[in-house]
């Protein structure tokens, strides 16, 4: 329960950072997608179900403030969380390489979906210009930030898991 509340808190902090500080940094070519990094990290560390719920919460936050169609980002982030959750049983989560690839894939998927559903339908047909001008910079930025942020999320998540486990054991002993 406590862990879930802390994940929510982290989501919220990521959202605030992404909309204020990281948006104002001029030297970045694009805004890194912290919410996606968090979604993928949680999905990869905790499995499909938590990834899915984290993604849903992250997307819903964007929908609340910046979306036109409610549920659009929620759906995309949810799928990203679920997808990365599929890998949690195959790989160990100490290694940063798999989450790196997962964020790259998910960011690519997310932005391509946004392009096809929101831009192509309005007659913006130059997909490759958008790919190189918008999607690619964001993917690179996000992947770079994953290197740092995955470690942070990993540490937080594992210390919380440890506490949870210890709490459960002491309860067992008390009984």
């Amino acid at each position, binding site marked *: 329960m406590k862990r879930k509340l802390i994940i929510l808190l982290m989501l919220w902090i990521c959202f605030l950072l992404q909309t204020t500080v990281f948006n104002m940094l001029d030297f970045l070519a694009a805004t890194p997608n912290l919410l996606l990094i968090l979604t993928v990290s949680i999905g990869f560390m905790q499995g499909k179900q938590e990834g899915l719920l984290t993604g849903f919460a992250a997307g819903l936050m964007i929908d609340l403030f910046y979306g036109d169609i409610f*549920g659009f980002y929620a759906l995309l982030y949810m799928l990203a969380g679920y997808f990365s959750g599929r890998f949690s049983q195959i790989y160990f989560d100490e290694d940063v390489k798999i989450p790196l690839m997962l964020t790259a894939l998910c960011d690519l998927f997310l932005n391509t979906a946004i392009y096809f559903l929101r831009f192509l339908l309005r007659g913006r047909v*130059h997909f490759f*210009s958008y790919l190189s001008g918008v999607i690619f910079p964001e993917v690179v930025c996000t992947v770079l930030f994953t290197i740092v942020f995955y470690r942070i999320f990993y540490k937080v998540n594992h210390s919380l898991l440890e506490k949870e486990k210890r709490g459960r054991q002491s309860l067992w002993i008390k009984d």
Partner: protein
Amino acid sequence: MKKKTDPSGRGRHLLVIMIILCVGLMLATMTSKRVTPPVRKAAGVIVTPFQNGINEIGKWLTKQLTGFQDVMKLAEENKALREEINELTQKNNELIQNQAELSRLEELYQMDRTYSEYPKIAAEVISKDPGNWYSRFVVNRGTKDGVAVNMNVLGQGGLIGIVTEVGDHWASVRSLIDDESNISGMASNTSEPCVVTGNLLMMDSGKIDFKGLRDSDNEVTEGTSIVTSNISDKYLTGLLIGYVSEISLDSNNLTKSGTIIPAADFRNLREVLIITELKQTKES
């Protein structure tokens, strides 16, 4: 390593349920516009104070940083500025004279609908769109300060955008360089209408598109100012959008299209002005 054993199927069931929920939400918002505003208002109460706070910290930091600037550079700049002041004072005197003449003439023509007369309030930009696809931002003024949807936003010498959503103490603004922004504009010298649209691919070069301009006498050239038109139903008349940068004849040989350099600088938006007056339309 402890892994949660996910009973097969449970995750998948959840996925299906959530997808249905999301699609349901999407359909609900697309069919009726009444669902989301109350939810958004409630959420705004929780997040905007924090964004405001972070913004304040950021401003303080930039202030500290700029304080460390090279003294030599400042002295040099000071000297140059002094020279400029002399020059400008002279020009200003001339302008004051012209202004007096202008106001006299304006009175004569009863032109009372100029720009400076609209009631305005200042607002600060507190957050921007989290992605890279849209140019929307949130400011720290809302309904409690008299802001309403469709109010025009000005800043740094030109039109910035329009208020699309509003809460108690925040309002989200779609800037005119946003890809989904469409403004009815007109050339200031011929009063011929055209459509001004944002374009994501040209955002880096700082330009926006315009199209559908009739100009058979070739009066619109590079540098002609484009203002909001009188037939627009959301934008007040005569707000400066920008200056024509390129113009070419369309393949239909009737209309012209090209690009505009916006008058306002969208790179570092901090403060904006919201005109707290809505355009008079048939319904209102």
